[in-house]
């Protein structure tokens, strides 16, 4: 193999290299490349290399990251599921800033790292002629190399001319790099070996993991949250004096929608006015609750002829009867809350607004079964 890839000139210091670059550059022998143990500022400019697009990529991706975080947070907290936290408006930009900053950094660093390694430096590379050079140990430690790369069809005359140019520029040592044998690397054998290697790695690591989990019992891989320091419902607790795991609510606690009624008899309740409007939504809710709780005894039409009447000795009230027609809304509400005759209280089953919705629905049933002519107009 007599083809030359490049001629390598070695220098003792960064300054010597920097001085040599314009001298060699002036000879226009071929592309110049420098290899140094650490980044030498200004070298890229001296070599007149193309400006790296990395800075622009990082800027664009950083701005994109910040915008992504802003839009995402805005959508979550102000559009999709607005929640007021700490008394702040859901769209408070101040709260978004830290996340925007973090995501901006994430996008920017990933772009910088991956863009540099994969996109711009074209890694992974399976080999480079300079790695075969005898001087490579020095280049990674304390020597500075300038390579004059041979152009296509440079011919035999190239190497001596390049050597002379480098020596004239003050190179302490010269090395010829032969062109590498360029076989296609993506051969069937290479693919087979790679796949086999991956398979062996999977098998070995799987076996080792299995062995480790089985043989070392103190290392359960996943306990599925079995061992939480948690108290199950109704369980006993040694922590509290009364031994109860579930705590009793503080005296006077009222659940939402279960405000105490504030009346003790139906007569007192009769004064109450239904606070709900008669809208299709309220009537639908009343209908649903009526069919769950009331229709079993009072019947789907409220006429006291239910589907299950045979099972009970008691005779459920016929809500269509004139005395119930004459009931005020509040009195029906009172019957639901306090219970009536054999009917128990439904206060624990129906929240306040559901009771009033049922009242509306009972009124609707009564009206539907006793429709007047003008209702049809």
């Amino acid at each position, binding site marked *: 193999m007599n083809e030359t890839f490049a001629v390598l000139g070695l220098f003792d210091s*960064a*300054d010597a290299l920097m001085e040599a670059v314009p001298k060699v550059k002036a000879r226009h022998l071929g592309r110049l490349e420098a290899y140094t143990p650490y980044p030498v*500022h*200004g070298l890229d400019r001296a070599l007149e290399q193309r400006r790296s697009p990395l800075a622009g990529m990082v*800027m664009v991706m950083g701005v994109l990251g910040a915008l992504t975080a802003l839009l995402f947070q805005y959508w979550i907290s102000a559009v999709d599921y607005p929640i007021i936290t*700490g*008394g702040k408006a859901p769209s408070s930009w*101040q*709260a978004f800033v*830290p996340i925007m900053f973090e995501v901006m950094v994430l996008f920017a660093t990933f772009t910088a790292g991956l863009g540099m390694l994969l996109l711009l430096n074209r890694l992974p590379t399976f080999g480079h002629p300079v790695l075969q050079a005898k001087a490579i140990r020095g280049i990674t430690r304390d020597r500075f190399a300038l390579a004059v790369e041979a152009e296509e069809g440079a011919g035999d005359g190239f190497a001596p001319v390049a050597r002379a140019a480098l020596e004239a520029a003050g190179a302490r040592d010269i090395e010829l790099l032969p062109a590498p044998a360029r076989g296609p690397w993506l051969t069937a054998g290479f693919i087979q070996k790679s796949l086999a290697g991956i398979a062996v790695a999977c098998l070995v690591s799987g076996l080792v993991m299995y062995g480790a989990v089985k043989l070392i019992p103190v290392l359960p891989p996943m306990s599925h949250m079995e061992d939480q320091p948690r108290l199950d419902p109704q369980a006993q607790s040694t922590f509290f004096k009364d031994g109860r795991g579930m705590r009793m609510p503080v005296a006077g606690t009222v659940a939402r929608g279960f405000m105490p009624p504030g009346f003790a008899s139906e007569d007192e309740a009769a004064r109450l006015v239904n606070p709900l409007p008669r809208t299709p939504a309220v009537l639908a809710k009343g209908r649903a609750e009526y069919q769950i709780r009331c229709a079993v005894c009072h019947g789907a039409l409220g006429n006291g002829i239910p589907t299950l009447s045979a099972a009970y000795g008691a005779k459920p009230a016929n809500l269509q009867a004139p005395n119930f027609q004459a009931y005020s809304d509040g009195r029906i509400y009172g019957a639901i809350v306090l219970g009536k005759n054999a009917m128990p209280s439904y206060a624990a089953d129906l929240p306040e607004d559901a009771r009033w919705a049922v009242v509306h629905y009972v009124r609707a049933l009564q009206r539907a079964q006793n429709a007047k002519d003008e209702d049809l107009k």
Partner: protein
Amino acid sequence: MSADRTVKLLWSATALGGAAAVASYFVMGGPRFWANWVVWFLFLLTLALGALFLVALEHLVSARWSVPLRRIPERLASLLIPLCAVALVGLGSLKTLFPGARPEAALDPLLAGKAVWLGVPCFSARVALCAALGLVPLVVLLRGSLRQDRDHDPRFTIRARRFAPVCMAIFALLVTQAAFDWIGGLTPAWYSDVIGVYLFAGAFMAGLAATVLAVIYLRGKERLQAVRFDHFFNLGAFLFAFTVFWAYIAFAQYMLMWYGNLPDEVLWYQAHTGGAWLGVVVLLALLHFFVPFFALVPRDAKGDLKRLRWVAVVVLAAHWLDLYWLVFPALGAPVFSWPELGFALFFVGATLLWTRGAMAHGEDMPVGDPFLREGLEFRL
């Protein structure tokens, strides 16, 4: 322009500005005059302290790259000498601007417990103590550095390195006193732990921007020719980094107080962002962060003298605006007209006259410093 004409121009600007400043006392009243006085005192104090910080930092970490530049912040730090007088005159503002120093303070339940600390005697004593403390680094670091020019005695370098931690402690004390007393004292019911750090970030930027301007000016006058791209790049990178630091501190303080929503924290922000002050805040964010940040973010920009020069001017203007925003809400809505311009003329003129004198003092580089050669050969 000849040197004589420049000096004459500076003197007349200072005189004109001084006249306008004095006139503003009688036309616009005491509070406006004193607020301007405090803003300019703090502006120059932070600038000088920032320069002193650069000098002390170099000794503290044994930096080599900045040795050729050190004489410039040393000369800027000498502003601490005339600032003693500015501070003492500024004590006249206590009864006007500072609620804790007024006699009514004893009646206010929020201030009664702190009346002694915020009162005129105690406040004045702190200012006097800090003025005296500020002169100590000047004696040790500046006089010694000038003496080393003549005798090339390396023992000064050793002494300066030993003194640097002490100097840093003095610096921290002075910045904190300035922040807590002169800014915090305007609204004694406000609690902020970070206002000292905030002022430090601004101080460092002001000192650095002034240093950059002075170095570029001297290079234009064919002095400091040995200062190279690499040195300017470092100055630019420093300025860039502290732009971000300032923004971080400013936003951190704002966000935490906004989140906490406590009356002893958030009321201050209500006064400082309400009404027309919101416009000032936006302008401050632009000038103090966004403009310098995006101007300095490209790699080549950090060593580009033209760009560094205008960015340094923007940073100094933004630092003035920062202090204006910290002090002036004590008077109410934002005001800006001829008294502010007069004060600017007076203090900028007087500062340039002083630094002009200081720049003629001694060599432009610490020629006796044993590390000067290494500093000149500095490569990035």
